[in-house]
């Protein structure tokens, strides 16, 4: 294991131990023996998870932060030099020159703006549909959730067949029944990202449907009864009872779907390859880091992306907070 990793691990242990001791000392439990023993046991139980989280989540983030200021080239790991903010300058230069990174940002924005409302809307609609007490509705729940358990790679390959540009492709042959000519859906810049948005929303909405369903089950029935007594119609019930009741669920879903949408990579990678009209930020970072082997530059892009997404997430939480 690298010396730097061991040092960081030692610091982590020291900090963890320090926090544990501080907590035990600051504890206000009256029984001295019980306080020390129970707190020590709790921290020891926490230690394995904390170590794993540190090693596999926090440590890579710290390393990436460091690499962002270096010229780390993957094939020369022993020849890393500090280059200050050069990587960040190159990032903004690439954007200014409307290079691939510029296209990646635009495509990611388009994807996020498209998939977030579509996926959440579909999920909410499916949740409302399956929340009714109708015989056989559970089968629909299973069907709507089924795409979620299929991996994105498999989904992408399946949709490649549906969107095949030849006249025998599923979509083209269906539209051909109405006289439409075969279309190259994934090569056409006007339709490629739209197709990716639709398949992504289709694949993911089942999961959010379950979360919405859980949120709906927490809304008291007497509120609906009261609304019915007041003469509210279906839309008014949704607006005054359902929607307020789902608010916290909605905030959680919009934040998670937004973050997931920003990380889209599998679909364009497998369906179109590295093309300007479908490349996304994550795909760009991956290609820069692993194909072109510029780990330092890729880390700089990752850092900027993290700051932007984190900022937007904080704004979302502020906007949607309970007043």
């Amino acid at each position, binding site marked *: *294991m690298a010396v730097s990793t061991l040092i960081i*691990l030692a610091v982590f242990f020291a900090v963890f131990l320090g926090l544990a001791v501080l907590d035990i000392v600051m504890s206000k439990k009256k029984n001295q023996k019980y306080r020390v023993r129970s707190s020590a046991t709790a921290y*020891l139980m926490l*230690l*394995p998870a904390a*170590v794993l989280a540190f*090693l596999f989540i926090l440590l890579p983030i710290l390393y990436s932060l460091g690499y962002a200021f270096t*010229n780390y*080239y*993957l*094939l*020369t*790991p022993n020849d890393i030099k500090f280059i200050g903010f050069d990587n960040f300058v190159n990032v903004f230069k690439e954007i200014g020159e409307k*290079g*691939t990174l510029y296209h990646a940002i635009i495509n990611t924005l388009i994807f996020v703006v498209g998939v977030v409302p579509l996926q959440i809307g579909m999920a909410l609609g499916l949740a409302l549909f399956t929340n009714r007490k109708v015989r056989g509705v559970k089968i629909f729940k299973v069907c709507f959730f089924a795409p979620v358990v299929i991996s994105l790679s498999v989904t992408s390959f399946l949709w490649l067949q549906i969107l*095949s*540009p*030849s*006249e*025998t492709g599923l979509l083209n042959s269906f539209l051909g029944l109405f006289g439409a000519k*075969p279309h*190259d859906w994934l*090569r056409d810049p006007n339709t490629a990202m739209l197709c990716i948005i639709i398949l992504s929303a289709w694949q993911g909405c089942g999961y959010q449907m379950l979360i919405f369903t859980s949120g709906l089950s927490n809304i008291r029935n007497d509120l609906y009864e009261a609304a019915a007594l007041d003469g509210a119609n279906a839309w008014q019930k949704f607006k005054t009872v359902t929607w307020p009741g789902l608010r916290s669920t909605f905030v959680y879903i919009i934040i998670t779907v937004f973050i997931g949408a920003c990380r889209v990579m599998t679909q364009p*990678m*497998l369906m*179109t*390859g*590295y*093309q*300007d009209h479908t490349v996304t930020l994550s795909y760009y970072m*991956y*290609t820069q880091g*692993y*194909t*072109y*082997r*510029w780990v330092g530059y890729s880390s700089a892009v990752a850092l900027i992306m993290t700051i932007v997404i984190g900022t937007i997430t904080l704004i979302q939480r502020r906007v949607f907070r309970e007043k």
Partner: protein
Amino acid sequence: MKKIFKAISMLALTSVMACGIAACGGGDNGEVDSSGNTIVKIMFHVDEKSTEGQAYKKRIDAFNTAYKDKKIKASATYKARTAGASSYETELNLLKTEGTLPDIITFDAPNCASYAQSKYLYDISSLVPQDIQDDFLSLNKYDGKLYGLPIQESSAGFYYNKKIFRDANIDVSSYTVENPWTFDQFKQVCAQIKASGKTAVDMRMDATKDETATYLLYPFIYASGGSFASDDGYTATGYFDSAASQNGFRFLKDLIDNEYTSYAIGATDFFTGKVGMYLSSGWTIPDLDNKYKDTFASRDDWGLLPYPQGVAKASATGSWCFGITDNNRKDKSAAKELLLWLTSTESSEAITAATGMIAARKSVNKNYAPGSPEEVLLKQLQLTGTARPSTVAYPTFSICFNQVIAHLQNENLAGTLSAQTKSLQTEMNRLKNLKG
């Protein structure tokens, strides 16, 4: 008693965690096993269960039997490449970062320059006897030094449906490797096939997600008198976007504009009799021999034509190779033995019998039947085989080439070429600065 038991449990748990973390550091380098055998580690780029993987496994087992008395043992791992995200290359990079590269790796020929410069590969010029080097159809060299030996050779050509050609009254019997057809003759044949109601040719222009399109189409640029980079691999401007290179890309664009080919040809359209010609490598021969009997009952139903010539003759070449790594092991003698074993004439025969590719060794005489597709590919390799550009920026070159192919239907070919050349040159400049 309970307190003692709890204390021991806590201690044991902490010790296990500490050992687990310590194990991450590597420990035993595994150079010699408990029986005193020198272990030579090799990593293959295919699935062990595949036909090719099984061929390698048999040769490894045979090596271990043959070298039992010499106390050398090969230990193989198989890391299959996958489309798009290459897990093999990723694993290689991770092992390099960890400092645990195996003794021998396989690598794709175009990566020789970048791997050699980045000290992945060991200079084997002095390890491989000259008479053995001379027996190879091609060698993997960079900066004058030898870094790899091909596992097998690869070439490509135009498989054609003889029935479609007969129905369209097309006679291609005079087009041979020694006397190939020209670009104009190629277009003429395409026009005749199109007139007969079939799609003329599948140029594999949709295969731009990986190396396939680059591998099959780059010879057209060389055949047009163009090129991609300077000899040192650090200049693309004036090469990738030269007038001659543009002519090569324009030839390919004309095929799309004239509707002789398109991006929308189905993967099996040639095999089901809808397309007259199919550009592919030797790996298609087993498919034609063993599958699609409805269309190709025997070799009387299909043939193989060489690449057409422009102002020059060029054909695809370059396949995967074996190379000894520049890992922390000083003594390369055991690795050398395994390398020479796996590239021997016996191994070459055994592996290519499984894969259907061309043997890398000249002395492996497969007695190909005159006029057979294997003979066409072998002759093409010998007479017109032209390697892909040797540059440390090869991954970027491949992506830029694919981008040009993917946008051939656009009107502004010169603009596309210019943009991709700029992108490639920027990358080359970065790598040159890194080199210092």
